[in-house]
């Protein structure tokens, strides 16, 4: 497959998923909760409990476990670049040293506190890539943000993409 794609490829990363042990710790109820949240990411705990026939307290406990302990659930938004009038939506892909992932992530949050962060994707089991969906008033500001993010120790690469459509 890669061979047939080769003339068109500009970049490729392949990550292996190695969290299969977590799957063994999940119950069928956990999967029911996930199914509810895939259908409606903003569903309230009360409703999740009602739809899965468990108490809201149990739903909350299981959800906390999946989010904070196992890190298998994340909530994000899908921005529409065309609707951001006066703002340029851009995607910043940051490649980091695996050992410094958490440290770099904290630094990035600190550096971006004055900017519009539409969503952040920290969802990389290999802990090598951080994806950021940001908005800025102009292209020069985008480059300034990129170089600011690129500078800390532990950041290997910071690349900007200007999306026209995400689906």
């Amino acid at each position, binding site marked *: 497959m890669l061979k047939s794609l080769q003339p068109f490829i*500009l970049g*490729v*990363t*392949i990550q292996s*998923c190695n969290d299969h042990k*977590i799957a063994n710790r999940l119950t069928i109820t956990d999967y029911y909760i996930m199914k509810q949240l895939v259908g409606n990411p903003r569903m309230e705990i009360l409703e999740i409990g009602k739809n899965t026939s468990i108490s809201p307290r149990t739903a909350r406990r299981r959800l906390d476990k999946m989010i904070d302990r196992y890190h298998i659930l994340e909530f994000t938004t899908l921005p529409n670049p065309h609707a951001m009038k006066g703002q340029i939506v851009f995607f910043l892909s940051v490649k980091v040293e695996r050992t410094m992932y958490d440290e770099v992530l904290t630094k990035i949050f600190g550096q971006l506190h004055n900017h519009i962060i*539409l969503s952040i994707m920290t969802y990389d089991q290999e802990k090598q890539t951080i994806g950021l969906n940001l908005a800025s008033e102009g292209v020069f500001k985008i480059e300034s943000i990129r170089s600011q993010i690129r500078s800390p120790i532990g950041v290997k690469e910071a690349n900007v993409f200007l999306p026209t459509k995400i*689906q």
Partner: protein
Amino acid sequence: MISEKVIERFITQINPSILGYQTICNFVIRNDMLEKDFLERISLVGDIHYQFYVMGGVEGFVMMVNEGSEERSNYC
């Protein structure tokens, strides 16, 4: 932001490994020369998690691959 459609929708992301996927491939490709049925063929190998179009005729997609799909990928 919701009423102005700046936020198109909210998303729940699930770790693919708990759904049985073993590999995640991120591709950034030039789309202006790509065959139209390419995405159909690639779906034999895995499921496309999401797809994005970037300025300059570039397209990216994230694909989740199941065990045993490597053999099927030879036919793509």
